[in-house]
Each structure stands twice: as C-alpha cells, then as structure tokens.
C-alpha cells in the first residue's frame, strides 16, 4: 500500500467540507430523439440570478460534451452572461437575471457532459438556479414532468445546493410535432468536490511538509518503516 496515496486521499476528503464549487458528470439517454419528427433539437442551459442584483457570484462551466453518434450543429444563441459553444465548452455567469445558452445538436444514443458549478449562496430568499432542457424544432421545451420545463435543475442555496432531475412526459406530444417522447431523467454523478484554491494550496503545503518529514524519518528508520508498512498492509488486506 502506498502511504503517499493515503495521505493525498486525506487531503481530498478534507476539501469537501469547504466546497465552493462542484463537479458533476451528467448523462442522458437521447436515443428516443433519434429520427424523431420534432428534430432538430437544441440544448438549453440557464444560470439565472436569484438576488436580482446580477451579482455574478456563480458560474457554470460545461465541457467534455459527448453526443454518441450525434454532434453539435449551428451557432449558439446567447442571452446575458453566456458564452462558448457545444463544440468546445460553455461558460454561464449570473451577471444578468436571465443568462441562457441554446444551440442545436444532432441526437445520438447518449449525451454526456461535465458540469463545473460554483455554489455560492445568495443572501436573499431566492437562490441562483442552473437548469438544462432540450428544445424541439419549435424552440419549445420537450414536455417534461417538471414545473420548471426542464430535465435538470440545481438550486444554489446558502450552504447547500439541491439537484433535481425530471423525465419527459410521454403522454404529451412535443409542440414541434411527432409522438410523445419517453426520456428518463438525466443521471447526475455524485459530486466530486473541488477544493477551495487557497485551502488546497495550504493543504498541499502541509501535505508536502508531512511527506518531506516522513521521507526524512524513513531514511533514518528503514527497519521501523518496513514494520509499519507490513502492519498497515495486513490491516488493509481483506481476509
């Protein structure tokens, strides 16, 4: 067992308690959209300000887009603090009340992307909100079983954030035409916390110092080290 990895793992675990950003992988089965007459479809992302101040205290970075056999097409339509495109990455900032990104895509079997979202809470009663929806050729959202007309909604409260996912309602045909679409809710992978930068540096320095001391102690006490390593491996090895 490598003790250095153990020590680094300890650093990562500590960082989750001080999170100011989260990293998610979002996956969605888009196979029901292949060949659907409501095509072309668009992806719509919004990061809307809850404070009413346009304080730009949160950002959402979307990247690593994968469309299966499909891909992105056309030019993005940007509103407020939105930039980028599906071919590279998208950045949303809540610098206005409405911040929206929309771009067409060709649906493949599955859609996935990474979402790096800062989670700085508002002081007022209304949180910032990130959301994602698929629009049909009419520009309307697919009929989601959601009050938000969206597949994914993340409300950023002060000290916490709430992730909600929604399937489509297959009993309602899309406004853009064709039969109802049966899409399950997106799968949002458990957040992998990103450490606060300052805290990370501090911990990294602490870790480096500890590693350095351990290395020096290792050089001075090779026999003791072997004994400790053997004991640690014995504890970690399942019976």
């Amino acid at each position: 067992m490598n003790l250095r990895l153990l020590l680094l793992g300890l650093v990562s675990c500590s960082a989750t308690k001080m999170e100011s950003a989260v990293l998610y992988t979002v996956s969605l089965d888009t196979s029901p959209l292949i060949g659907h007459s409501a095509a072309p479809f668009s992806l719509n992302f919004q990061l809307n300000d809850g404070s009413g101040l346009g304080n730009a205290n949160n950002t959402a970075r979307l990247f690593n887009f994968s469309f299966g056999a499909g891909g992105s097409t056309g030019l993005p339509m940007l509103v407020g603090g939105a930039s980028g495109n599906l071919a590279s990455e998208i950045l949303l900032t809540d610098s206005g009340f409405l911040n929206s990104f929309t771009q067409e895509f060709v649906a493949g079997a599955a859609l996935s992307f990474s979402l790096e979202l800062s989670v700085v809470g508002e002081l007022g009663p209304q949180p910032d909100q990130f959301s994602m929806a698929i629009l049909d050729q009419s520009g309307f959202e697919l009929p989601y079983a959601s009050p938000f007309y969206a597949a994914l909604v993340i409300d950023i409260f002060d000290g916490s954030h709430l992730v909600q996912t929604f399937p489509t309602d297959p009993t309602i045909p899309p406004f853009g035409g064709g039969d109802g679409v049966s899409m399950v809710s997106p799968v949002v992978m458990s957040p992998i916390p990103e450490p606060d930068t300052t805290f990370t540096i501090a911990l990294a320095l602490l870790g480096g110092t500890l590693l350095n001391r351990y290395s020096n102690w290792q050089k001075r006490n090779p026999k003791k080290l072997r004994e400790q390593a053997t004991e640690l491996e014995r504890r970690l090895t399942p019976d």
Partner: protein
Amino acid sequence: MTECGGDSSGGPVTTLPISPVGSLDPNEKVGSTGFGLPRFVAGSVATSYAVFFENKPTATAPAVDVVVNDVLQKDSLDLSTVQLGSINFGKTVITPPTVPLLSGGPFSTTVDLRPETNLLVKIQSTLDAETGLLKWTFNSLDPATGKPPDDPLARFRPPGGQGVVFFSVLSKASVPSETAVKNKASIVFDTNLPLETNEWSNLIDKTLPQSSVSSLAATQRTSAFPVKWQGTDSGSGVGSYTIYVADDSGPFTTWLSETAAIQGTFIGQPNHTYSFFSVARDNVANTEKMKTVGEATTKVILGSCATNAAPSLTIVRSGFRFSNATQRFVQTAVIRNTGSTPVAGPLSLVLDALSANAALFNRTGLTSCASPTGSPYLDALTSAGASILPGQTVTLTLEFTNPTNQPINYTTRILAGSGIR
C-alpha cells in the same frame, strides 16, 4: 323699378352692400348648427339648410322674378337624397312632397295671392344632377293674362318682403370622417346681379366613440361600491354613456341611461356577482357598438378579512427558469409546516411588493381586504377541510410574465381561513 342691393333699372351697379354675415343679413344661408364651433354633424343624418332672401326695404318696387341658386358639392353630398322643405314668403307656406327631388321630378306649383294681391306666383324647384345646381324660381303672373303683370306694384316681392326656402341632403357614405361640407347660395332679383349668401360649413363626424368600465376589485366588502368608466371620441367628443349591468349570470340590463357622469355608486346584494360594460354616444349621436361581455366584474362579499397564517409555516423558494414554451419565468415555493400542530386551510400565498416589471400569471386573485391590498395571491389549500400536517409541505408553481427580463423580487405572506383575501 326693382332694387335689391343695387339698381335694377339696368344702370351701372356701383355697390353691392352685402352686410357681413349676421342675423340681420337679408340674404343668408343657414344650416344645421351641429355641435361645437366646427358644427359637427353625423354622417348618417341629413343636413338641413335654409336660404333667406329679402327685397331690400329701400327698394323702389317689388320684384317680379326671384331665383335662388344653390350649387351643392357633388363630391361630398349624395344628390339623390336632396329633399325640399317648405317654401315661405309673406303669409304663404308651401310644403312640397316629402320625396327626393331627383326621383320625384322637379317641383312646380302656382300660388294665388288674391284677393290681397291680384297676383299668381309660379314656383319651380329643380335639381341638376350633373352640375349639382338646386334652383328655386318665383315668377309673378297676372291672373288675367298669365303673363308678367303690368302693374308695377302688383308683384311678387314688395320692398322688405322676406322669403325662405328649406332643403335637406345626406352626405355620401364614402365621405371620410371630419370632411368639411360647405354650402352657399345666391339670389337673383329680376335682372340684378346675383347676391351671394354667406358660406355655411359643417364637419362630418362618423367616428364611433369608444368606452369601457374600469376594472373592479374581485370582491367588494360593502353593498355600495363605486364604478367608474371612461371614453374617447375623435370628432364631436363623447356626450353620454349608458351603463349596463348583469346580476350573476343574468342578462345585461340598463343601470344608467345616457348619463354624462363618469362614475356612479352601485348598490349590490351580498354574494351576488356583478358585471358591467358601457356604451358611449358622441355629441352627434354616433353610438358605440353594443357589447355582450362585461368589462368589469366584482362580487359583493360582506365579511371579515383573512388573517396571516401561523408563523410555523415557512416558505422556501427556488430559483427562476425561463420557459421558451410559455415565455414565462417559473419558480416553485415550498410551504412547510415546521410547527407541531396542523395548519388548516384554506391558505393563500401572497406576493407583496412584486417587481413592477413582472406579473404573477397564474394568480388566483388580488388581495382586496387583507392589507396590503392589490397584491397577487395564489391559493395553496382551497378547502377549509384540508390542512398541512407538521413536517408536511405544499409546493406551488409560480409563473411570471416578465417581458423585459428584469429581476423579479417580492416578499411573501400566507393568509389563512375563509376570510376575504
């Protein structure tokens, strides 16, 4: 010799002493007085005119023949509707048939003035459809010969003798509103030069007035409540309103008829719903189209106001998402009972001080009793039998119209009980 503003002897006329337009002008054109200084008249009503003529008191002899000419504006007047009114001179009144002159043919009659005056007067009225010339001719005739009388004093119009002819005409249907219809006549006494009358002008007003009853609060807490209305009209202006009311789902009936007021106090019955609409009439009697649907509706509910709900109810709002499908911003509000006892309905979530740029699209109503009033609210529990148990939540979806995409802010309160919101 006949004098009528000049020398009728054939000598040179040195002056034409036509006075400025006034009631004393012996030769004058008068039309419908209409409304206001522009003399607005409705396009659907015939305009009446009178042409006054008089042999001047200073004339040295009566007139043998008098001709009244009136050229009508063919482009704005419908000549087929020209109808003669009475023809008057001295004590004589002639009433022509009440048929349009063009379809009825020229009017002609002879009046016997004997025994007061040994004279016949032949009167003819014609209308030339090509030129628009409407003409009255008065010829003096000797009863014995049927020719112009030799006696210079036995003639039609003695000095100072007055006459007047009347007629009416409709404007053309194609004439746009606010078109000026102008008219003047000329009078010829024997062989004198024509004497022109003043010009009479009217403005056509065909525009229908518009009016509406101002919106009313959803509920009234007193039986007597004010109702206001307003209207506009380009042209003669709104002259009066008729206000109609429907009681519950009954038919609309007249509440106030032809009133110039713009508000009134209506007295209703408790638990009755009243709808109102107005129909305006302008100053030349153009009337707004009749309506069938109420413009303002209210219900009389005599009772107490709803009170603020227990403080154990907390509200957690979500953020906003803009729906492309509805073009509205969507938000949820979760009401949670954090207390230890159930909170009974009905419950309403009230949004106070909502940003002016936004409106709650799916509101149940506006507060009219529980202060502050005028705030939109959405019912959370509509039944008095329903309740939120401790730990339970109720989620409301709020949809806002917000055309300018400006921030949406508001404060909240929850009203409980069956009192008025």
